[in-house]
């Protein structure tokens, strides 16, 4: 059975592994310079070229797309193609049970996908590691590896995604019995999962931490005004730049979430004032005074966040979650193949 799986699968496998090798070449050519730059002590972000930044985001997109593509092109047709061409009637009548047939086929394909995505992620993670979360001295930054932009494209999680995508594709192919619709639905469902998990699932994989901060200019991230000129919201940074901030709310003395006091609007360079031709140094004392007044009136900032040192625990938790979902879908595959397919 291993031989047949390999025979049916080798062209696709070769294609994918060649693509991974091509990515590895790009990584090896462009990567060492970034690692040297990071070691040199200069501000890395300010020394990045446009193409470095483009490559950074290309890496993110590549690792995000790879499991989806593999799921659609390997997983969905895995059984559906046999059903479409009627070849299941040939292969199910050799001296191999359906269960063993599916176990070998699905198992080897999933392994192949997991290994390919694992290698790809490893290369991209190494390439990106100096760049993740770098800050400019003046303005600008790259997303940290705990942020939703990068988290599922680093470390171990993409392997879990790849396993899930292949099993999802195979399951849909078995249920729908047609490759093309199964491929389309695999892509749609997987894209939904990629959006839904960081929004609703990942923040709760480990109970997030909460911190209540006093206002200070050092911690201030931004103050924004509403269009009417009043103050809208104020956001602070946690002590560690790499933390993944989930909510950033101002609370009153009683600890309840509240709107900002109206007087704070006077601290804003709002539309009432002419465009600030004066340098910001003139406004700095104003802001410090405003923040002190906020503190004195009992306002605090409550931040719910995942600390930066939870990167690996969260990686393991999310990978585990996807492996469990894959296991459940895999069980459905076997059950459906034994009981419902004929």
């Amino acid at each position, binding site marked *: *059975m291993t*031989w*047949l799986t390999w*025979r*049916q699968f080798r062209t696709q496998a070769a294609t994918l592994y060649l693509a991974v090798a091509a990515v590895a070449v790009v990584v090896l050519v462009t990567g060492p310079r970034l690692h040297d730059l990071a070691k040199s002590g200069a501000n890395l972000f300010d020394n990045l070229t446009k193409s470095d930044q483009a490559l950074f985001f290309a890496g993110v997109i590549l690792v995000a797309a790879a499991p989806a593509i593999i799921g659609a092109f390997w997983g969905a047709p895995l059984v559906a193609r046999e059903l479409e*061409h*009627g*070849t299941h*009637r*040939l*292969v*199910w*009548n*050799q*001296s*191999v*049970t*359906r269960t*063993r047939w599916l176990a070998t086929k699905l198992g080897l394909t999933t392994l192949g996908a997991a290994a390919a995505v694992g290698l790809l992620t490893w290369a991209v993670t190494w390439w990106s590691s100096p760049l993740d979360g770098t800050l400019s001295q003046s303005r600008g930054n790259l997303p940290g590896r705990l942020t939703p932009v990068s988290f599922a494209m680093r470390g171990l999680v993409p392997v879990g995604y790849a396993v899930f995508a292949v099993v999802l594709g195979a399951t849909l192919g078995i249920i729908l019995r047609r490759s093309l619709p199964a491929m389309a639905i695999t892509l749609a469902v997987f894209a939904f999962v990629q959006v839904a998990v960081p929004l609703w699932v990942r923040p709760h994989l480990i109970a997030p931490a909460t911190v209540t901060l006093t206002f200070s200019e050092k911690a201030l991230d931004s103050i924004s005004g509403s269009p009417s000129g009043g103050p809208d919201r104020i956001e602070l940074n946690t002590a560690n730049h790499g933390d993944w901030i989930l909510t950033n709310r101002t609370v009153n003395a009683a600890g309840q979430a509240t709107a900002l006091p109206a007087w704070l609007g006077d601290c804003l360079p709002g539309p009432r004032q002419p465009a600030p031709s004066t340098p910001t140094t003139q406004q700095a004392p104003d802001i410090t005074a405003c923040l002190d007044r906020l503190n004195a009136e009992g306002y605090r900032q409550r931040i719910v966040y995942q600390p930066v040192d939870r990167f690996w625990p969260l990686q393991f938790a999310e990978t585990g979650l996807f492996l469990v979902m894959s296991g459940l879908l895999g069980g459905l595959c076997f059950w459906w193949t034994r*009981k419902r397919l*004929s």
Partner: protein
Amino acid sequence: MTAVLEARGLGKRYRRRWALQDCTLEIPAGHVTGLVGPNGAGKTTLLSLAVGLLAPTAGTIEVCGGVPAGGAEQLAKVGFVAQDTPTYANLSIEDHLRLGAHLNPRWDRSIAQTRIERLGLDPTQRAGKLSGGQRAQLALTLGLAKRPELLILDEPVASLDPLARREFLQVLMEAVAEHDVSVLLSSHVVSDLERVCDHLVVLVDSEVRVEGEVESLLATHHRLTGPRRETDSLPADQHLVSASHTDRQSTLVVRTEAPILDPAWTVTRLGLEDLVLAYMEVPSADTRRNGDARKPALEVLR
């Protein structure tokens, strides 16, 4: 005599429609059994049940003493050439043989290779490039080299031209003689079966109408022609199969072990095709009134 296939009250329902109903059947070992019936009679359903591609809705079926597709050992006992003889289009003939060798413990390499050689096929050719006849031969080779106890073929020649049809059946017969395997094959063309079968099952409207050895079937069925008369006046030992009447004449097909003594009848023997056709006619009031309103339930090819 041992049975290679034993069905009791076997039925298969798709949603509301019964594709096969209350089928009780015993097919003895060592025969080439033809399963004949019009399109949609349930032949494919019965064969799919026999190889375990389908699970029965009602009743039981045992093939070679086991539940169809009940395990690897059971699968090894039964060979199957599915309808339209599916093969992997982008795998070569050689790959197919290797597939068979990898997936079947009893695989006989020499059978496979001799047969491909004898057919004059190029082993490196992809199955997708083969003609329908060659593809059927490849599927048959896979089925035979597996060394099954029972080889089941579902309409193996339906899509072949008359020459390829004849060749295929000839090869099948040679192989059966050579390898001592029981065969169950279905067709809606009686003339195909006439050439190769010594046992027959007629399936109409998802029910088994008649089954038995071809010779004894032919010996016990008679066509009676004579002056018009009502069919209920037949002797008790004559089982009426079909009847047609014109204004003055009656033509009956009856099954009986005993000789026919009534001098009013002209008795003729039936060919296999006529015999099968007689069973396919539903003996309804309609067909009794209009003797010539025979619907061509069966395709007749020579």
